[in-house]
């Protein structure tokens, strides 16, 4: 039986691999409190925003995951199904909560726009899976940023997959 902490460490390692090269000036990065929430568990997502005084961020949650509140005032958040729009006004950190479904996995993707600088970009995807279990729909929705990270990551992803499968196999 492989202990949970090791699995989590692996996921964190994977996450670090996926951190995108920051765009010059503005950088928006995401961190999850956990990438493998339990069924129905609420976890927090932290967006770290650098170099953007007035702009916007749109987060798209994978299917089944639901928005569960944020620390930003109500008039600066708008939810449309799986999309959550945040109006950024001199914020360096936005935190919001997400409730995981009974099962399911996917990528949380995001786009940011700087209305003063006139630039925009993507927030690197964050993969999340309930109890660490990958569902078929999730693997189909691979985030392009993940693909761009290069072949070493693909190898690591394959290794991770094997380890996870082994873990599950071990659990039974």
């Amino acid at each position, binding site marked *: 039986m492989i202990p949970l902490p090791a699995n989590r460490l692996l996921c964190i390692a994977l996450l670090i691999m996926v951190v995108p090269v920051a765009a010059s000036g503005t950088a928006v990065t995401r961190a999850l409190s956990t990438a493998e929430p339990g069924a129905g568990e609420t976890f927090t997502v932290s967006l770290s925003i650098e170099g953007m*005084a*007035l702009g*916007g*961020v*749109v987060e798209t949650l994978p299917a089944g995951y639901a928005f569960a509140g944020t620390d930003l005032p109500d*008039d*600066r*958040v*708008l939810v*449309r199904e799986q*999309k959550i*729009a*945040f*109006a950024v*006004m001199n914020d360096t950190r936005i935190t919001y909560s997400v409730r995981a479904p009974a099962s399911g996995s996917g990528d949380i993707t995001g786009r940011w*726009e700087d*209305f*003063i600088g*006139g630039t925009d970009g993507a927030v690197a995807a964050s993969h999340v899976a309930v109890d660490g279990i990958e569902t078929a729909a999730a693997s189909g929705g691979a985030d392009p940023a993940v693909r761009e990270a290069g072949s070493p990551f693909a190898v690591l992803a394959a290794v991770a997959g094997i380890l996870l499968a082994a873990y599950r196999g071990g659990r039974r």
Partner: protein
Amino acid sequence: MNRHLLLAVALLLIAATASAAGIPGDADGNGVLDQPEYTAAVLTYLVGEGDLTRTDIQDATWVLARWDGRPLEVTDSSGQTLTLSRPLRRVVTFTGESLETLRSLGFDMEKVVAVDKYSHAKSAFFPGFQEKANVGSIWSPDMERVLTLRPDAVFLYATISTAACDEIQQKLEASSPGTRVFRFDCFKPATYPGEIRAIAAATGCEDRGDEFVGFYESVMDGIRAGTADVPEDGKTRVYFEYWTDYKTFASGSGYNEKLEIAGGYNPFAGESAEYPEVDPEAVIVSNPEVVVKLTGQKLAAGGYAGHDIAALEATRSAILKRPGWTRLAAVADDRVHVVHSDILGGAQHFIGTAYLAKWFYPERFAGLDPNAIHQRYLTEFQGLDFNLASEGAFVYP
């Protein structure tokens, strides 16, 4: 039935122009964009709903951040107050001076969509501007082209060519109500600093505007201060000749104003015509201490287009050969100069005035270096890769 259609179309047009004219995102139309309206507009845009485009949101952000959510009021040199609900994105300049001033302020030249035909032709001073549209001149403007460019702002003169400028303004206000018509001269010493500040405010280049005004005023105020205590009868007598032989300036003209700022005394200033033609004998009788000859345009020598010092030298030699002139104080003391109108008229008049001051009072202005001022202007403010040592010909000697 037709009347109802007409009314509907009219209302639609009114609504369209009204919404286009106000601050983007100002939902209640009260002329102020407050934070709730802004955030609502941003959020609606982010989720892909609503009518506002990215440009609209960027403009709304500008208004909120720079103008505190309110429309900006700019007063131009003709005294009219213009209200801007959005930052300027498409500018047409009919005058080279306003174009030059915009460039000094660091305004994004990509936002200048069209220039007048004279600036269009100046490939040395405005390199790359030939790709922009050409809207003709103030006296024969290409109104169709101006209208199809849908400009936010059009720059015209305030105090000269007023009939022609008024006509262009009237036509624009009738056909294109969203276009703001700015009347700025940008070549008069008395009004230039105020104009720089007004244009800087309108274009959001306040910091650079302050810097440029500081530079300009250091030169001009330095000259004024340096000549302030010269007594009336102690002023240097100057004969300043226009392009044509024996044509000089009188007190109505801008060139005379700069001559007087530099502390010179023009014995012909009192003549009634703006460019009086004077009797050659009167010139000799007045015995000027300094003679300055204007070159440029008609004499087609010097300026930014070439490095033709020889042509300026030839002009000077021709003057020295005039009969009876060897007895003039100016010729005896070797104080005959040629200056190009590019640096004495227009937005660069402070450079030419600096040369005049240095020629009129060499000791007082020993520390003044007009060439350095000119080079700094070109390199730092105009952003031109132009080296005065090897290019251009503006003064001789």
